[in-house]
């Protein structure tokens, strides 16, 4: 350990002591104020947050979305994906709870939308038929603001019947270009069980499956008719 206690703290090499004098604490605070010292608990959390802050995917979103709150939710979706890929289940669950506290269920759904890669797929579909950048931006922002009109997030307790009813209700009241049914775990089983019935019900859509692990995402894309 360094003989300079301030230096030891900066290196994380001290356990602290009851003998920290008020003068010593004042020196620490000056170091904080001068941006020369920070007390962190888990370096990994900072690294994960930093990595997504600098990610190419977020840079692309920044081009189309100006609202800082929306961007933060999208960023958290990228972090959820990262944690999932690293098998960090506990951290992922903690983050889901924090997103829920801060942005309510709608924010969590948007983050899941990003986590599952569905936003990127939607952007791909929009690019196939782009009329103007402004129209493109408007559509992306609309799906973020009105996620529940485009995506049914099935929960484990939802029955097949109630899920089918909800899908039908949403697709008849909102003629959107895409419609997604998403769930994980036991909800993914419910989705698998109703897949054939959904294909029959949603005859104006073509199905693209985006399934991975214990997640099931049925991505329905409206068939454009030439009339």
């Amino acid at each position, binding site marked *: 350990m360094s003989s300079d206690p301030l230096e030891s703290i900066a290196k994380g090499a001290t356990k602290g002591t*009851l003998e920290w004098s008020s003068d010593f604490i004042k020196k620490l*605070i000056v170091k904080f104020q001068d*941006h020369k010292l*920070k007390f962190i*608990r888990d370096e990994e959390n900072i690294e994960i*947050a930093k990595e997504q802050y600098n990610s190419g995917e977020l840079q692309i979103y920044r081009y189309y979305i100006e609202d800082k709150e929306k961007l933060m939710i999208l960023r*958290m979706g990228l972090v959820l994906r990262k944690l999932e890929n690293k098998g960090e289940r506990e951290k992922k669950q*903690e983050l889901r709870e*924090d997103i829920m506290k*801060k942005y309510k269920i709608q924010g969590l759904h948007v983050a899941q939308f990003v986590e599952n890669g569905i936003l990127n797929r939607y952007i791909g579909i929009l690019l196939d038929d782009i009329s103007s950048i402004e129209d493109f931006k408007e559509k992306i922002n609309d799906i973020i603001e009105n996620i529940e009109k485009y995506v049914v997030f099935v929960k484990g307790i939802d029955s097949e019947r109630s899920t089918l009813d909800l899908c039908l209700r949403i697709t008849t009241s909102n003629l959107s270009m895409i419609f997604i049914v998403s769930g994980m775990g036991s909800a993914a089983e419910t989705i698998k069980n109703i897949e054939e019935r959904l294909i029959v019900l949603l005859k104006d859509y073509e199905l693209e499956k985006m399934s991975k692990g214990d997640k099931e995402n049925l991505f329905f894309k409206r068939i454009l008719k030439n009339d």
Partner: protein
Amino acid sequence: MKNIDLNSKIALLKGLGLGSDGEYVLDLDGNKFLDRYIDIPIKVENMVILPGSVIVLDDNILSLSHYMEEFPDVL
């Protein structure tokens, strides 16, 4: 922060104009001090102290991400 004992952390909090009941970070009135980004009480064992007028936060990815937005050049 994990390496620093509880009493030193509390002494540091006092130096910052805050306090602790041994479990949570408290404000001057003895109320639980909330994480400025997600409004949750901060446990002493989970706190981080970061530059920027000296900010005490809960150590979670969402708060740290907000901090990076507000102070992009610090971490």
